[in-house]
């Protein structure tokens, strides 16, 4: 899985200072990694408020458990693990919620053979928020975070085959949402 992230000049020393309760060192660690941690959480959660709650939980847990960080892996790797575990701990039950199908599948439609414009990233992010929770978690873990289906299956307590199936349904739903115009700027009112 992809665990790259922000780094800092003398991270081991900063970690030691944070272990000793130095708030400035905690802030330095936060500033180095907050962006990537929040991005993971925001995408998994699909919701701003929940993502903020999760982010607070992750950072408080991280500072509490700093003594348990032995430095065998990069701090960022360990931290993102805490982040994903925290998020999935809260979201796991939603992975099995029943999925409501969209009213109609627009594939293939009259526009399908026309050249498509480049993907609008804002629309993409909004469409991601619109996915059923189970689809979104698998899609984010696989296509954004680089988890394998075996890792996803272990995290979510599902079979690897289910993870694959959810991924393909998730991508199909994303295409369905994007081609239907869901997530475009003028769609905000319907949120």
């Amino acid at each position, binding site marked *: 899985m992809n665990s790259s992230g922000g780094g800092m000049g003398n991270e081991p020393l900063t970690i030691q200072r944070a272990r000793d309760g130095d708030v400035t060192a905690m802030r330095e660690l936060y500033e180095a990694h907050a962006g990537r941690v*929040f991005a993971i959480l925001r995408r998994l959660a699909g919701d701003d408020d929940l993502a903020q709650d999760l982010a607070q939980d992750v*950072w408080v847990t991280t500072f509490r458990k700093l003594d348990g960080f032995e430095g065998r892996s990069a701090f960022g790797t360990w931290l993102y693990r805490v982040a994903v575990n925290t998020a999935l701990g809260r979201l796991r039950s939603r992975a099995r919620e029943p999925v409501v199908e969209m009213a109609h599948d627009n594939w293939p439609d009259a526009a399908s053979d026309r050249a498509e414009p480049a993907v609008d990233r804002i629309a993409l992010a909004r469409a991601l928020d619109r996915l059923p929770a189970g689809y979104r978690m698998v899609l984010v873990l696989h296509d954004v975070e680089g988890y394998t289906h075996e890792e996803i299956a272990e995290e979510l307590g599902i079979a690897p085959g289910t993870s694959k199936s959810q991924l393909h349904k998730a991508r199909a739903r994303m295409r369905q949402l994007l081609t239907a115009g869901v997530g475009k700027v003028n769609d905000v009112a319907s949120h």
Partner: protein
Amino acid sequence: MSHLTRETLSRILDEGAEPDVRSHLDACGVCRAELAAMGELKLELARLPHPPVPETVWSGVIRRIVAEGKAASRAPRPVRLRVPLQAAAAVALLGLGFVGGRTTVGPRDAGSVAVAGRPETVEQAIERVENAGNAYREAISDLESFEAVTDPQQRARVVFERLAALDLLADASRSALQVVPEDPVVNNYLYAALQERQRLEASLASAAGDEVFWR
């Protein structure tokens, strides 16, 4: 011609196409275009920029960390919070001390951490801020046995000590904020102290019914 489903096209992205499916793709521009669009979707998902991190995240974290500091005296390995050097230096420069004319200090005298006069070094200023934090934690530790205390005077003493310790922290933070008004850590110290004071007053008012005996 019947087209491939989007789920099938997604599967092809990861696993490749069987010969019969490959034949269909060779002949069908619609499915090829959709496959390409799905590939672009997959790439763009991995390139999505990070959303901005709301400021409320850090303020919530530090508030909880500060609040956990009150459990330090009970924890096997206490968390010792230190304010940033600039905040401590600000306190030192101002030379305002920490009590600021409070009159509600209890018998054990949280004023023992109050300092008359100007700290001479940054280290001294830090030590004084830490002393205020220690007084706060001691007062909280006392409060653990609060429910068992029946003597009204003793109850009042415990409450006074905790309130006084909170006032010390609040005053130290206010002093520092005169010089570093934007410092998020100091702002959060002040916020946490005021919130805890309000919570304490509310819980004790609730426990004592209409009689708020410590006022």
